[in-house]
């Protein structure tokens, strides 16, 4: 029963909120350009409209083209179920850990990449080769930072990690956690194809990465792809805020009121992070493709310094 309740609340929160973040980021970008911008619920309208249209499938494409949108959406939702939005609603155990999270996301990305090759359009091949480069550069730093958190909390599963961090109180007061926070923030920017790495709003052939891969899609397939990307972004942000900025220890009341309060604080944190992402996106320009290894190296270094701080000062974490 508790499992079922967890799944329902988790899906409701993540699936309903995911498109809102894109709306907020787009709104802030519009404000920075002195425009009024689309309403923050624009992505919901877009998805609704796209889902009512039939999709065009190329004659030369194989079954992979048709099956990929469903796989992408399913992997994003499965990944979302692994990261609890609040430790109050979580059951005793959630199967799977962060290694599974990374590999599930990698599965979806793999299918996006091969489907871009499937239609044999030139943009698709270019986009998937770029995506392969970026993801292989980013993956070491995501694994090193998550393994460091695993070493600190003595667990690889995300719910025990959240519970230990809840006991610590305010982990960002520790130098090791600050570097992990910055590393994960860089990873979120790279994974959700935001500006220094990729421009989500462009259709210029020289700069697009994620857009190039989904260029052939239309109608409800496109809706599933975009929805999957939004859910993936929210999952990663949830991972960041719930592990490094835990909030459930602040709630004194119990019962349904506590859950509602916890989810409200969670939403405030998520919106805060998306505002920071929007500011980062506004204040930088897109890097050229061959500068992305520099960014990936910086993010790896941040994760590695966090690991080093843990490794040398293992005793310090016990002090909390």
């Amino acid at each position, binding site marked *: 029963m508790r499992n079922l309740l967890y799944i329902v609340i988790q899906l409701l929160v993540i699936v309903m909120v995911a498109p809102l973040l894109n709306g907020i980021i787009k709104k802030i970008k519009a404000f920075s350009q002195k425009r009024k911008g689309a309403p923050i619920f624009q992505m919901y309208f877009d998805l609704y409209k796209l889902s009512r249209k039939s999709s065009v499938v190329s004659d030369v494409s194989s079954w992979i083209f048709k099956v990929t949108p469903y796989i992408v959406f399913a992997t994003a939702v499965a990944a979302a179920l692994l990261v609890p939005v609040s430790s109050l609603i979580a059951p005793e155990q959630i199967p799977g850990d962060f290694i599974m999270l990374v590999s599930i996301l990698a599965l979806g990305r793999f299918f996006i990449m091969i489907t871009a090759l499937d239609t044999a359009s030139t943009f698709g091949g270019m986009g998937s080769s770029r995506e392969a480069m970026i993801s292989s550069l980013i993956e070491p730093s995501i694994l090193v930072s998550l393994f460091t958190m695993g070493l600190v909390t003595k667990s690889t599963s995300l719910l025990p990690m959240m519970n230990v961090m809840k006991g610590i109180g305010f982990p960002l007061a520790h*130098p090791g956690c600050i570097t992990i926070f910055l590393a994960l923030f860089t990873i979120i920017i790279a994974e959700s194809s935001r500006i220094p790495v990729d421009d989500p709003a462009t259709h210029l052939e020289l700069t697009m990465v994620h857009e190039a891969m989904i260029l052939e899609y239309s109608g409800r397939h496109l809706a599933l792809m975009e929805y999957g990307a939004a859910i993936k972004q929210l999952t990663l942000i949830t991972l960041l805020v719930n592990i490094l900025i835990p909030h459930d220890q602040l709630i004194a009341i119990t019962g349904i009121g506590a859950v509602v309060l916890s989810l409200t604080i969670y939403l405030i944190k998520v919106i805060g992070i998306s505002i920071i992402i929007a500011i980062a996106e506004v204040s930088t320009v897109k890097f050229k493709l061959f500068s992305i290894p520099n960014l*990936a190296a910086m993010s790896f270094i941040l994760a590695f310094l966090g690991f080093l701080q843990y490794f040398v000062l293992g005793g310090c974490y016990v002090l909390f």
Partner: protein
Amino acid sequence: MYCFDILSLLILLSSFALMANKKSKSYIKSFRIQSLLIAIAAGMMGIKTIIEEGRFDVMVVCLLIIILKVIYIPNILNKTYTKAKYQVEKDFILNIPILILVCCGLVVFSYFSLSTIDGINDGMINVQVVNSISVILIGLFFMISRRKAIGQIIGLLVIENGLFVTAMFSTQGMPFIVDIGIFVDMLTAVMILGIMVFKINEEFESINIDKLNKLKG
């Protein structure tokens, strides 16, 4: 609590940011940020010494850092380098990701070499000292890896920053006269270097140090 640990880590990260940059403008900006962080650390140390011991000299040093390193020296360098022809560094000895990884190796090296020293550590490794010694080593490596004169000057300044931070974190505030001596040395060095670079740029039409071994006449 962990304030000084966090500040020393941020100073180290700012020297990594310096290493990842290519433009002379961003070198100066990173140096300015690093000096600002050092000024904050010195200010906090100054408040601590005023409360505990009643000494005001660390506060004076903090003000001097803000005036000299955050405002004056970066402005001199900016003024000199807006006139230089080449603003972007092109020829590295290695590419930037490898340079950053080597710097990471330097940090690991200083962690492990300092863990054997008894005096500073008393039981647990003093992270602040380790981070600041890594800043010195990274400044040295920055001087090696850049070919333009601006890189050399900034590298020298970063080494000096690292030395100051190491002294401050390991002794809780150096004798006043030593700090002032180092500052005056630094200031004259930067002024002379700035004027010399300007002259070199005029004479040779470039500030690449590889071309300085050719005689002209």
